């Protein structure tokens, strides 16, 4: 176990160095390679974890994922990169949500009482991961032209969103109080999915890169939450790194467009409620 933790330490150092080098043109490619090496180290170390007793599904998943990853990375057109990043980001969010859901199911199956803290991080991780998934896929659809690039709005959109958030919180409260209700959990996931889509839909195609960057930051937060769910510091650190650096990059991108993040996200409502109604 010490060896695994030391490998994680090395992987974290490589991630930080890699991110730093990715920020300047001369070193960017090397930075990406460093981060990739860090990832390889982290994955191999995890395979040696004593908690992993059954390898067939794990290795099958890795093999299938790698094959798909290589094929799509080689075939995607250079002009389609932003939507490619959105797509991959959505998959990462989905994976984080699945980790939270899967662990929750395992705990339910054990029949032991689930600590409130565990329920909270499971719900948080599921929420952020699911929002990342549907938000990213809408962003990809908009850039690829599957969905109109124009802002999609409907009456009472904001109150409806608030209603969804309240609905999610009610489901969460219910689950924290009485965790044995799987249907409520699935309902909460569905609400999160709708919220993610409604988050990206009102934003115009031109602002999509900023949205993708923000969703990238969110996928880091989701990974960090998954780290608390499975109790793994490597996951917590790497997720937090991406969450924070993604937020800074989002801000830099907004500044480059002479915009503020709020005006990008809520620009549709910039004229105030009165203008929206008029």
């Amino acid at each position, binding site marked *: 176990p010490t060896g695994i933790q030391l490998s994680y330490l090395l992987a974290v150092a490589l991630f*930080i160095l890699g*991110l730093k080098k*990715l*920020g300047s*043109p001369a070193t*960017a490619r090397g930075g*990406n390679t460093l981060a990739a090496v*860090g*990832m390889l180290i982290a*994955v191999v170390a995890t*395979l040696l974890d004593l908690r*992993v007793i*059954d*390898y067939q*599904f*794990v290795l*099958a*998943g*890795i093999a*299938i*994922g790698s094959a798909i*990853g*290589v094929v*799509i*990375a080689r075939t995607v057109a*250079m002009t389609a990169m*932003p939507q*490619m*990043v959105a797509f*991959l*980001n959505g*998959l*990462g969010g989905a*994976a984080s949500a*699945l*980790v939270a859901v*899967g*662990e929750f*199911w*395992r705990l339910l*199956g054990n029949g032991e009482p689930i600590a409130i803290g565990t329920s909270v991080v499971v719900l948080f991780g599921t929420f952020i991961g699911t929002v990342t998934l549907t938000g990213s896929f809408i962003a990809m659809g908009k850039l690829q032209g599957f969905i109109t690039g124009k802002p999609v709005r409907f009456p009472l959109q904001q109150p409806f969103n608030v209603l969804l958030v309240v609905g999610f919180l009610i489901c969460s409260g219910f689950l924290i109080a009485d965790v044995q209700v799987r249907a409520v959990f699935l309902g909460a996931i569905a609400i999160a999915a709708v919220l993610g889509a409604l988050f990206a839909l009102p934003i115009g195609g031109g602002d999509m*890169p900023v949205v993708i960057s923000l969703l*990238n930051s969110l996928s880091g937060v*989701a*990974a*960090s939450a998954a780290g608390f*769910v*499975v*109790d*793994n*510091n490597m*996951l*917590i650190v790497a997720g937090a*790194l*991406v969450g*924070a650096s*993604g937020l*800074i*990059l989002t801000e830099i*991108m907004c500044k480059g467009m002479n915009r503020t993040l709020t005006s990008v996200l809520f620009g549709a409502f910039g004229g105030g409620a009165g203008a929206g109604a008029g």
Partner: protein
Amino acid sequence: MDTALIASLFVLLLATFVGFEVINKVPPTLHTPLMSGANAISGITVIGAVLIAGAGNETTTIVLGTIAVALATVNVVGGFLVTDRMLQMFKK
């Protein structure tokens, strides 16, 4: 709260500040590659997926975990390769 959780919260806080500081003054041409590289790193969730797919005695957990492993691996492998492709253009 137990000490392990507190230690994890310390780690979370420090990593967040490192994340804030590690990025500054990125030229616009690097915005998309940087986003893509960071996105590949967020695929680190693959190790969480490995932990639940390999350890679960609950069938649902194994199924969800295996799907998560596959999706996160696509994110990681696709992410790093795509970033490298973008950055190849920076060669002189």
